[in-house]
């Protein structure tokens, strides 16, 4: 099965039919692609200095720690940078979030973070991933309740930062 990362439609289909972690464990190719792409070469890796907003979030039970920095320009998120101590799921989620939220207004971005968290927590009725870009690849995480917290951590951290 060919993987086309940027094309939203095919990704949705594959994520739905393939195995679980990051949408795919039983499809090694897909798993590999995503983890290599975002987990090992994350977008937004490294903290921004100077930055306009900075925060930290952690999960005591998984040991995950995320540090987030944001640069703003005219009410929009111009750039995001993070460091993640934790699993490949966490790193990939950070990276996918950076991609999905950069260029958005803070209000839009916060709404997207809420949308993502509701989707992963299974609180969303319509399973609508529109506007979240490649982050849809993380939908498979829902089959691993223990890992949902890892995937959500960057988004939760971001949402809290904006709310402040």
């Amino acid at each position, binding site marked *: 099965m060919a993987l086309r990362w940027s094309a939203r439609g095919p990704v949705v289909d594959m994520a739905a039919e393939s195995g679980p*972690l990051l949408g795919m464990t039983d499809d090694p190719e897909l798993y590999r692609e995503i983890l290599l792409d975002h987990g090992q070469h994350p977008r937004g890796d490294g903290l921004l200095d100077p930055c306009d907003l900075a925060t930290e979030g952690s999960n005591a039970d*998984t040991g995950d720690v995320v540090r987030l920095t944001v640069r703003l320009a005219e009410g929009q998120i111009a750039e995001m940078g993070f460091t993640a101590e934790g*699993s490949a*799921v966490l790193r990939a989620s950070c990276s996918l979030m950076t991609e999905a939220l950069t260029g958005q207004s803070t209000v839009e971005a916060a709404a997207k973070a809420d949308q993502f968290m509701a989707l992963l927590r299974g609180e969303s009725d319509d399973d609508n991933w529109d506007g979240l870009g490649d982050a849809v690849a993380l939908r498979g995480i829902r089959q691993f309740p223990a890992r949902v917290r890892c995937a959500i951590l960057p988004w939760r951290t971001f949402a809290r930062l904006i709310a402040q």
Partner: protein
Amino acid sequence: MILDKDSLVSQWDVAQVRAEFPILGQTVNGHPLVYLDNAATSQKPRAVIERLDRYYRTENANIHRGVHALSQEATAAYEAARESVARFIGAPEARSCIFTRNATEAINLVAATWGREHIGAGDEILVSEMEHHANIVPWQMLAEQVGATVTVIPINDRGELDLDALPALLTSRTKLLALCHVSNSLGTINPVEQIIPLAKAKGITVLIDGAQSTAHFPVNVATLGCDFFVFSGHKVCGPTGIGVLWGKPDLLNAMPPYQGGGDMIDRVSFAGTTFRQIPERFEAGTPHIAGAIGLGAAAEYLMGLDQQALAAYEHELLTYATEQLQAIDGLQIYGEAAHKVSVISFTLAGIHPNDIGTMLDVDGIAIRTGHHCTMPLWARFGLEGSTRASFAFYNTLAEVDALTASLRKVQKLLG
């Protein structure tokens, strides 16, 4: 007849043992369940499941209270369970076995009662670097309240206690030594037979955390010579929600009560209340009757097994798993004590334990990842945690192979 190791191992009929554990026949994520998280909690044999079932079907009543037949029956079963538990840990008197919720509550009980009375400002509570949080945090809380300090026996790179450092740590201010019998993260068996007399010679009270040892080999609190011994039912094939505090009877009876309420009192009046002796003294309110009875059944089940063959078999599992895991490139085992139980903690270069855990789960393999409630231990090794495979007497060599095959797969994908 003296049996050599191989013939002992061959005496262990693992297929027959597995047949006693209904859950082991399951498939998980389309694969046969490979349960290697025994240090977290053990699976339950038919004997325990059926005992709980029988209790609720035919014996359920409150204990120590009723004159009616069922209450008598439930009381008898509850107290018979105490007798089984006493034999299980070699306690000379059943009344010195207090039922608690778990090992954690047993430790907290000692801290809140004996600790509050005997530990004061400037005193020292000695623990080890490999303790479970359950045997650290209650002592830190107590130390905070009374102005004592918690001191720590260091470990070496193999994950053994540094016995050379011990004598200097047993000071005139040391009031308590609280030490695990076996480390849940490393598998290390601590030489408590050697350590306890050193502490006792200095008049130090000793609490042994037997949460892990009781799952692997018979213990005898009388010969150990400790003052307190704690363990959890759920790790020794018993139900959750039930644990045991054993203490020397005189020590227990001299301690102030833990919780107040029904069953633990002698007489109550608004002018003043008097308390009962052990065990009721520390069992306020309706206890986990079914849990205690289930734990009694678990203790009987374990005592009925061939201990020598079991030990030889688990050692075989440990040796084989260690060899197979060490053969994986980039895999590092933590905990290489000369004496250890079948628990193996490891890291796999460049791969986070939580990713390993999730991918193994996809193959039906249950292992534990993270700090295993021993954060100071992992800090000692400069780690956040590990991946831990812990084996019980019902695991098989084929399950070790499944583990290593799955780990190689993870490594190919993520390494």
